[in-house]
């Protein structure tokens, strides 16, 4: 942003200060993430710069230590299962919500969104009490159901947003040509809203993949997920293996988010093309 040529000296100074301030804020935003990555390649177990030497030993520990490997595996199992469940349920609900003739739509929407609004500790404690009664604590199923509940709002919101741009006359056309409702959904609706569904699924996966509070309450050591393992690692004695785990998570999140961005661009392109 350039200043107009008639800007006074004071204005130029203010503007320079403003730009300087912005630069500092951007540094503040990215530094923590950029600093932690190189530390995971340090050859020594302390967190200083310049790095004493380069080594992959923390990654060896991360991928070789059974606790971490089990944690990655558990995160993957719970993440995939809850994503599948959340995406199916969430997409169906979004289809129902956006048909425009649902009674009590506002009420239903606020119930469906509520897991996102309630502070996660409350959710965790409530589930801990209730799931104990039906024997779901310390089980994969309990954790999967809990993560599913937390992720469905993201699917509902994302798919609903995609559906607002969806042209209903397409499904009507397909139906009038004799397609059964399921065929209409499979051949017409789904391919068009697919980017939204995939984004919703990715959001659901990330929600489960990053979730720690519910996992702290509901999971026994057997279902220990990656964030939970990191949480106890930071609490006890922070070892550089945690920086390797953090880097792994950063790279993983970056990949997922790049996918999301590409999907968003694709759907924008499609929207413009129409």
């Amino acid at each position, binding site marked *: 942003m350039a200043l107009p040529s008639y800007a006074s000296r004071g204005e130029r100074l203010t503007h320079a200060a403003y730009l300087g301030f912005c630069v500092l804020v951007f540094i503040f935003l990215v530094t923590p993430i950029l600093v932690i990555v190189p*530390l995971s390649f340090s050859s020594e177990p302390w967190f200083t710069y310049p790095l004493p030497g380069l080594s992959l030993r923390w990654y060896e520990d991360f991928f070789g230590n059974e606790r971490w490997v089990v944690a990655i595996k558990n995160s993957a199992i719970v993440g995939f299962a809850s994503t599948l469940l959340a995406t199916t349920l969430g997409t169906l*609900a979004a289809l129902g919500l956006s048909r425009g003739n649902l009674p009590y739509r506002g009420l*239903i929407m606020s*119930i469906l969104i509520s897991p996102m609004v*309630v502070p996660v500790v409350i959710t965790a*404690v409530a*589930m801990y009490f209730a799931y104990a009664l039906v024997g779901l604590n310390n089980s994969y199923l309990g954790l999967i159901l809990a993560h599913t*509940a937390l992720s469905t709002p993201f699917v509902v919101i994302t798919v609903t947003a995609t559906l607002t741009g969806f042209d209903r006359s397409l499904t009507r056309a397909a139906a009038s040509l004799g397609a059964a409702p399921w065929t209409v959904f499979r051949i017409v609706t789904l391919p068009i809203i697919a980017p939204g569904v995939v984004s919703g699924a990715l959001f659901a996966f990330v929600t489960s993949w990053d979730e720690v509070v519910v996992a702290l309450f509901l999971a026994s050591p057997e279902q220990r997920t990656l964030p939970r393992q990191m*949480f106890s690692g930071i609490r006890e004695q922070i070892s550089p293996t945690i920086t390797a785990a953090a880097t792994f998570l950063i790279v993983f999140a970056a990949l997922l988010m790049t996918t*999301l961005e590409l999907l968003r661009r694709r759907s924008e392109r499609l929207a413009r093309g129409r």
Partner: protein
Amino acid sequence: MSSTTAPALAAGTGPDGLSLKASLARAERRSRLVSLALVTPLLLFIVASFCIPLGFMLYRAIDNPEVAETLPATVAAMKGWTQGGVPEEPVFAALAADLIAAQKARTTGLVGKRVNYEIPGARSKFLKVGRELERAPAGGPWKPIFEKSDPQWTDPVFWSALKRIGQPMTAFYLLSAVDLRLDQTGALTRQVPDQAIFLDVLFRTLWISLLVTVSTLVLGYPIAHLLASLPPRHANLLMLLVLLPFTTSILVRTTAWVVLLQTNGVLNDVMVWLGLLDERIQLIYNRFGTVLAMTHIQLPFTVLPIYSVMKGISPAHMRAARSLGAGPVYAFTRVYMPQTLPGVGAGCLLTFILSLGYYITPALVGGPLDQMISYFVALYTNRELNWGQASALGAVLLAVTMVFYAIFNRLVGIDKVKLG
């Protein structure tokens, strides 16, 4: 459409012989049912896996089963007893029978613990008299055994308190969550000072959330403005710098701050190297570290709504104000800033609401005096095993969150929040 439809339409009836109006109503009803059928699976799932547990937790904040369930005969016998004196032998006999049963079921400690919340020291007296009753000859009389065990058993105030604690529901936990209690005569009073910690925790939670909100606004407003006023090519690049931390997990970012803020961590290194500090200072496990890390995590949540509002403000407004003679400050505060207020409101409320529920970051970066309500909910659930208190604190946190969420919904609307 079948070929018979057209004449039927002309006659005012549908293909099924119904009037067009009835046929339309029927189709609409069917369509509504389809919508409902699509939504129902998720609705049932959320109700079963989330809403019912939540309701159950809220109920637990007033549920008071211990005494009523462990000492049923005593509670029944006390119904006929009028408060103010010490009960007679029948009540003591009932209590003795209940306690002997409790000794067998090993639940004396449980009921003692519950009474102990309101009458400190009661637990050991329950355990003591329980052991003595087991050894006592069957058939009583029971009252002398209690009298000999501890003078408290003949204290009228203790008995009125016990009668109250025997009710199936209690306001005790909820009152305690806001540092109130019923004294032994049943009047509402302030909690005794050494147990009155929860209002402090509540105000601390609000205060930390406010500090974080203000910091994110101060840091975020200028960069939102910069992002909104740069040409798209540059803005997109800078936007990545906002989105990169946004998409990185909270745990990873908290880890990063733990590493950065340690006494022999990177930030202390840099400040010593620059000569800003002579000695390394404590940056972590205190309020500074907590607010700093939380500000970093919440900054994108504040920036993005402000940015999207600023994006919609035409630059012509500022140019017009300037050309009409307004100075830069006047034009900014009178023309530009008021238009950004909806975004500022949305961003700040979002950050404030999310900050209220923080648990992980203060637990890892904060000291004992930086723990927010969430921490105490977890503490009473896992460590103290006082689930009534945990639920009551959860109810308070939920209520505070809902108040601000209602304001947010009024002003902004949850469906307008964009993700990514």
